[in-house]
């Protein structure tokens, strides 16, 4: 069952955003389904029938429930990839921590990057409930056998990129992730609720950076515009290939791991950003962006999906650098892990 943010933790005031409102809707949607579910699942006989009934009734599958192997594998792949993205995602912004323009900005950026590490850990913990170990997953990442989001293979060239990442990349992540709060696998859904609450601070701090720059000197405004120009299409590509080419979508939708298609989420993101870009006084780099009265949505230019595929395959601007950095810091941290384990062993022996 979903935790109601207002009751289960005292954080509504702290987060100070509209995500708790969204989560309230999530909770309302689930309450309505819960009662109907009780009837259907009671009637189901056999493991597979019970699993199907739980999914059909929009209930949660929990770790020790029976589940199809392919459901387990799909979740492990998706949650691991998501966790790796949070961890690798610390690098582009970490690049600017020592060069943030003020102490305040530095403190905020540190807190944000620390949150991303936290997101990675929530997600590894959720994946472990499916029977893999975090070590295995980290090994798969380091060996290049599991992916992370292609967006983090782009460089952060200026301070404004930190703003653009917060506004666009974290913004796109939120659009992707809010529906995951209703994912059929309990531990993943619960991790996503925590993550979504924290993401909206990330998005706002990015927006504020851009707003400050776009209302500063001409050079600052140009820097903000340049960052938006560079991050817009890679952010659109974060939603994945167009629906027609999306290989895993149909099954994930049937299992209610996924709730909306790539193109639906991408459209939602575009529609949100247009208004916000107006407030920033910046333009989105798409000459064909215009309101479509009939569709009640913006028409927009698709990102370059061939580029997306190239970056996923390893040929983005920073793929090698990101992986080399991750491997190096993993190796350089080995002595800390070993020392802590040795100390624990010694203490246990003394006791």
């Amino acid at each position, binding site marked *: 069952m979903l935790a109601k943010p207002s009751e289960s933790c005292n954080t509504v005031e702290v987060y100070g955003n509209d995500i708790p409102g969204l989560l309230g809707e999530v909770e309302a949607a689930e309450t309505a389904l819960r009662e109907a579910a009780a009837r259907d699942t009671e009637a189901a006989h056999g493991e597979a029938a019970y699993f199907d009934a739980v999914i059909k009734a929009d209930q949660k599958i929990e770790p020790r429930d029976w589940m199809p192997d392919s459901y387990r594998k799909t979740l492990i792949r998706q949650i691991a990839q998501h966790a790796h993205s949070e961890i690798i995602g610390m690098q582009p912004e970490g690049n600017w921590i020592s060069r943030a323009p003020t102490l305040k900005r530095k403190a905020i950026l540190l807190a944000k990057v620390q949150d991303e590490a*936290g997101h990675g850990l929530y997600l590894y913990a959720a994946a472990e409930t499916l029977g893999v170990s975090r070590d295995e997953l980290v090994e798969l990442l380091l060996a290049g056998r599991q992916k992370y989001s292609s967006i983090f293979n782009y460089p952060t060239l200026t301070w404004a990129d930190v703003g653009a990442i917060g506004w666009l990349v974290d913004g796109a992540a939120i659009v992707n992730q809010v529906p995951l709060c209703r994912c059929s696998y309990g531990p993943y859904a619960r991790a996503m609720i925590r993550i979504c609450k924290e993401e909206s601070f990330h998005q706002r701090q990015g927006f504020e950076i851009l707003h400050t720059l776009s209302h500063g000197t001409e050079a600052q405004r140009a820097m903000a515009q340049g960052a938006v120009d560079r991050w817009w299409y890679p952010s659109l590509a974060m939603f994945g290939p167009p629906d027609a080419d999306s290989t895993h979508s149909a099954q994930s939708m049937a299992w209610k791991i996924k709730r909306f298609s790539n193109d639906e989420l991408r459209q939602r993101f575009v529609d949100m950003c247009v208004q916000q870009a107006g407030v920033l006084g910046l333009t989105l780099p798409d000459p064909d962006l215009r309101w479509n009265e009939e569709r009640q949505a913006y028409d927009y230019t698709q990102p370059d999906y061939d580029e997306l595929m190239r970056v996923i395959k390893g040929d983005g601007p920073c793929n090698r650098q990101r992986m080399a950095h991750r491997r190096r810091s993993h190796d350089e941290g080995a002595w800390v*892990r070993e020392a802590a384990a040795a100390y624990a062993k010694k203490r246990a022996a003394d006791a």
Partner: protein
Amino acid sequence: MPDNDWPLWEVFVRPRRGLSHGHVGSLHAPDATMALRNARDLYTRRQEGVSIWVVPAAEITASSPDEKDAFFDPAADKVYRHPTFYDVPEGTQHL
């Protein structure tokens, strides 16, 4: 991998005085002291709690390998445990 020496801990947080500790997730740590510190950094970065418990995951005894089980069935036919089971004569107050 040295991490293999780090057991899994389940983390419980009391959100504020007057509420029970609730399960928030898990983490790896070499010992209980580090598990507490990691839990603070991971699960209470925004004052989500006033108290934390960490429990070695291996020490938890769970009711059954299934979340749906005959174990809980005996409670199903004891509707008389709920106040709504009883007819209250019209006009009764404060009952």
